[in-house]
């Protein structure tokens, strides 16, 4: 038997956008649609607005012709922007939805952590939910019996095992859910960003658990936006973009490609095609750029110099209060800080339709050395409606030169810390001879 555990060939998944938009169809809609749409299509064709049959159908390919092979025991990362097809791929592999074309062959049981806690019933106790959830995930009762104590200990909810989970705190709830899923011992584990659950201590525990799973020789497919977790956990990474497999290889190479090339430069991203731009009904993203004081686009920033992040966006509806913001993350995925637009001119001032450019200046001597990832978004205020939030839109390198003018001083070795502000240092000095003289004086005074 070969040791290939997953083989996908030409996997494709088609969605009808029209269908997706009107998810809650009523019978009337269908009837009206059946009657009206042929005319509408006819008119479109007569006017020459539509040229191909595909355009008539309004379909998108969430996945197109994806082929790969995964060997027993490999831990494979899957990365790509929002809408690249990562989740669709996992959904197909976990048999939640069928591919439109192509096939995949899987040897063994698949466990998925697509969303932990689905299938929990709030009225049931922790104990009952462990059994129920275990059964839903495909564990047998004997298996659950065997692992029951382990699950409870991992989730750290022993005391509340007979309390209905509706009384749990959200942290306890998530921990229990993850614990059940993590103890399912499948040959293949699919993970979709669940590691963002709970506090950082529990996150670490989850990451370790995943590492264990990988080391035990089981196969893991791991979807994440966190490049550091990907490079740490996965030896191999698959990069998807717009439903296509762009690259498949060693993680460090693929991650580097994802961050640096293939999408234009990461220091400036633009969406010339407004149909593909991220955005909601009120605001749409046009571009994000990293610039120096001199207004040049740059990917290297001197730690002492300020750097600006420019966000260009279009307001599609007048009269809303908008809050543009950026999240700054370091290589380890730690949020360094969030910057919300606090431009006094536009605070509490409804915006008119049109194009805007908001620029935030990050002062010099604040960021630490290394890569900084910027996630950008806009939300409306009152009511709060998220317009878009793009992960890792741009990234830049902060360089700390060794000329001794930054917070590192003349130290050339590695420095820790999430930020590296330049502090004011003062020193008081008392020379030795002077001190001796003073001592003599003092002793004289005493003797007198």
């Amino acid at each position, binding site marked *: 038997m070969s040791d290939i555990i997953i083989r996908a060939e030409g996997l494709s998944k088609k969605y009808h956008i029209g269908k997706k938009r009107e998810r809650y169809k009523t019978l009337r809609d269908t009837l009206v649609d059946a009657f009206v749409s042929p005319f509408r299509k006819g008119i479109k064709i007569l006017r020459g607005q539509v040229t191909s049959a595909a355009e008539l159908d309004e379909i998108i390919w969430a996945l197109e012709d994806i082929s790969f092979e995964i060997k027993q025991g490999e831990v494979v990362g899957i990365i790509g922007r929002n809408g690249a097809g990562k989740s669709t791929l996992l959904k197909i592999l976990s048999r939640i939805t069928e591919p439109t074309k192509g096939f995949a062959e899987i*040897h063994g049981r698949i466990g998925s952590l697509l969303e932990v806690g689905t299938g929990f019933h709030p009225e049931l106790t922790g104990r009952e939910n462990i059994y*129920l959830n275990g059964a839903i995930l495909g564990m047998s009762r004997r298996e659950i019996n065997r692992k029951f104590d382990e699950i409870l200990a991992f989730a750290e909810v022993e005391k509340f095992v007979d309390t209905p989970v509706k009384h749990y705190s959200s942290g306890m709830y998530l921990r229990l859910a993850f614990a059940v899923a993590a103890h399912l011992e499948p*040959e293949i584990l699919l993970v979709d960003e669940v590691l963002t659950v709970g506090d950082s201590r529990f996150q670490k525990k989850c990451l370790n658990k995943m590492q264990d799973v990988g*080391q035990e020789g089981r196969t893991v497919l791991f979807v994440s936006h966190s490049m550091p977790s990907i490079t740490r956990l996965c030896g191999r990474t698959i990069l998807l973009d717009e439903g296509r497999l762009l690259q498949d290889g060693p993680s460090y190479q693929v991650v580097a490609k994802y961050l640096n090339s293939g999408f234009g430069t990461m220091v400036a991203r633009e969406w010339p095609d407004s149909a593909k731009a991220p955005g909601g009904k009120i605001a749409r993203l046009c571009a994000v750029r990293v610039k120096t004081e001199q207004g040049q686009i740059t990917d290297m920033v001197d730690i002492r110099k300020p750097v600006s992040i420019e966000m260009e966006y279009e307001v599609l509806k007048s009269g809303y209060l908008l809050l543009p913001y950026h999240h700054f993350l370091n290589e380890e995925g730690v949020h360094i800080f969030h910057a919300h637009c606090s431009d006094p001119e536009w605070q509490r001032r409804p915006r008119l339709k049109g194009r805007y450019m908001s620029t935030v200046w990050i002062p010099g001597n604040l960021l630490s050395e290394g890569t900084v990832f910027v996630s950008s978004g806009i939300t409306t205020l009152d009511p709060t409606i998220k317009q878009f939030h793009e992960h890792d839109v741009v990234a830049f390198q902060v360089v700390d030169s060794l000329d001794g003018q930054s917070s590192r001083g003349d130290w050339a070795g590695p420095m820790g810390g999430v930020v590296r502000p330049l502090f004011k240092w003062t020193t008081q000095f008392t020379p030795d001879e002077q001190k001796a003289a003073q001592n003599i004086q003092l002793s004289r005074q005493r003797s007198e």
Partner: protein
Amino acid sequence: MKRSIPNNIQLIRIEPSKGWVSFKLKELLKYRELLYFLIWRDIKVRYKQTVIGALWAIIQPFFTMVIFSLFFGRLAKIPSDGIPYPIFSYAALVPWTFFANGFSQASNSLVDSANLIRKVYFPRLAIPVSTVLSGIIDFVLAFIMLTVMMIYYGMRPTTNILWLPFLLLLALISSLGVSLWLSTMNVQFRDVRYVIPFLTQLWLFATPIAYPSSLLSEPWRTLYGVNPMVGVVEGFRWALLGTETAPGPIIIVSSLAAILLLVGGVIYFCRMERTFADVV
């Protein structure tokens, strides 16, 4: 540390389903523990946070019986095959409540489990099936009340009572058949949710619960069995209360109708199943 793939591991092939319908009954059997847990959950949760709890299972048919006895028995003087009207209608209401509650709850079951369907794979058939099956506990409770009433009215069951499990199975098949149709349609057309109350009401009066089927003359009476609940209800009365005419032909017609309903339902369900995760 590398483990080789054990040979006993089955190969799962994921591809667009071909053919008209793919039967997943074997798979449902494989997941029978899940089925068990889902039924167990439904039963556990059913009367949580209610004051009188499982008594509802008795109260529902009992009060309908009281109302029927008052209006149809006393005022309208509807004949009841020579049996006291209250027990005449209650004996019919017990299987009816099982049937009607079963399909009205199961019809929403897929939509209510949308989260699960979108996130985890398991045979979807388990959802409506478990909902209908969990109604058996209510049936048992209502049935206990029926025996109490039989003792009160001094009814002595005959050996016909041995047919009861079969009649219950017939009710189960009918309920399941309707559930599969409605729950599948509900995934795509939420109109079903609003149709169910009317449908239940209509079906209630289209079934000889408040009146005997002997009001009809042959061959219409036998043809009446096309509504599978006619066979169930008349069968229950015959088996427990000893109504004179054995409803043999009716039951045969009803059984055929129920099986047709179920087979059609399963085919429709399995055909649509693959789209559930995308549509629900």
